[in-house]
């Protein structure tokens, strides 16, 4: 079963124009484009019953922001990667496929500024304070520095 599973995932990955690489033991990585993402995840969740989404990880790669969907299936971990450009950080929400993704998408939105179209709670904050200035860059980007954020937030408090 556990040897069969990466092969099955690999077959669906080829349909989506990608390739499965096993980086470490039981760590399967697939990189798909935004257009093919939902189709691939539909196969993964419904046909291969990989229904447990552990979390969504956001990474700052310089030009792009990488979103990794970390799925777990028995002993195997499936990391589905997709990139969005930093100039237009908009991704498709997957809550119609995995309803449990709603808070993870909010977290990536808060921390890296990626907007997920289709998520009804995108206008709310999950982790950042409500008074977070809208012109301040997202905190987990490599360009934003902790001391600058602290300075800005303290100023906001002083004004009040």
């Amino acid at each position, binding site marked *: 079963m556990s040897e069969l599973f990466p092969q099955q995932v690999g077959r669906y990955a080829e349909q989506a124009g990608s390739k499965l690489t096993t980086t470490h033991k039981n760590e399967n990585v697939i990189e798909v484009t935004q257009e093919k993402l939902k189709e691939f995840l539909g196969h993964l969740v419904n046909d291969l019953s990989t229904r447990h989404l552990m979390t969504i990880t956001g990474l700052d790669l310089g030009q792009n922001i990488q979103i990794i969907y970390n799925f*777990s299936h028995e002993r195997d971990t499936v990391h589905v990667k997709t990139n969005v450009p930093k100039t237009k950080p908009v991704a498709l929400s997957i809550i119609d496929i*995995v309803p449990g993704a709603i*808070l993870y998408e909010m977290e990536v939105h808060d921390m890296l500024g990626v907007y997920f179209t289709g998520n009804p709670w995108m206008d709310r904050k999950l982790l950042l*304070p409500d008074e977070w200035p809208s012109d301040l860059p997202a905190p987990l980007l490599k360009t934003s520095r902790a001391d600058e954020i602290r300075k800005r937030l303290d100023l906001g408090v002083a004004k009040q």
Partner: protein
Amino acid sequence: MSAQPEKPPRREESAGLMEYSTESLVPFGPIHPALKEPEYFKLVLEGERIVEVIPRVGYVHRGLEKASESRPWIQNMYMFERTCGICSFVHSVCYAQAVEGLTMFQVPARARFLRTIILEMERIHSHLLWVGLMGHWAGFDTLFMWVWNDREVVLDLVEAISGNRVHKSMNTLCGVRKDMPENMEDRIIERMKYLTDRARYYRDVIDTEETMLARTEDIGRVTADTAEKLCAVGPMARYVGMRRDVRLNDPYAAYDEVPFDIVTRNEGDVHALLRLRLDELVVSANIVSYAVKHLPDGPIRIKIPPTIPAGEHSSHCEAPRGEIFYFAKSAGGRTPERVKSRQPTLANIPTALEMLKGQTLADVPIVLTAIDPCFGCMDRMSFFDIDSNKKWTWSGEQLRQYGINKYFPERAKRQLHGQKFSSAGLGFKEKF
């Protein structure tokens, strides 16, 4: 123009629906800094029933992921251990496993067994803490006193092995820092036997004691399908019959060398959660006894260089509250490129919201304690009635009393009678 009616009809816009329905908004929380994980739930009530819950977390978000990018690999491990004040060791184990996967070093067998022993002791201590709190919020304080007394037993053992009660700081990359003291084996096995007997006794208590049955049975229901769709983890997944436990599905540390089976239940209410956690205590005690008896000889750690090879690796572990997940990305330097951590409470909040829907306000403390995220937020809540613009505030103690009075009116009367002589009850607090 016709003359204006003397009295305008009440709530014209909702006349077609329920004329006398009042929808109230109850902000629940957010914070009591003395307790773990403050959260804020905005409850929309239709009469006494909850129809909608809006969560708001992040009050204690300290930016650990950002901070980890400027600290050495080994230092980060002790920082991530401070994520939680109850299940601290499992965080350092999970982070260490994510980093160890990037290196080519194997953890020695003795270190893996020692990690398993501490992890299971931590689970016992966390579950006992939770059972005590459930007793407190249900109005059965005797259980709270008993259980927290037994919790000291396991905390003493943890202190004897690691030197600390809460933040063990015992882990290191590719090993552990402290070895098991000599002549501990018999003492641990004897204490585990005592805890097993106590757990079985508590199980009989919650099955027969009317206070616990009235407060927990048939409350906080979700279906297995909902829990699976919302990616529930840990006891929240197992109490509806899902066999989701990382210790079994993807064994780490020494769990593939220790015989054990996980516990699942099918009822899917708060009482099932109590039974489940008490049964898990017995399983954990057996794992500790077995691991202590079969502790292999050999080194407890390997020294590794401070730079970690470039790559990406992830790890997940079963904390007392459910699965935790760590993802580490290295660029080959002394500090990480990115570390991502996800805690079980965040994964369980969508399921918790489903549990709360349809419950009464009196059940909110017990349901929110049952999911084990936060009891701090219950310490102060304010009520706002949209219709009458009336505002009032209840403390956590008053809300607890409200729940008890609703279920046991005759006990409330008794308490009211005794109020003149004791400090318990609502009246005393309001007066002073």
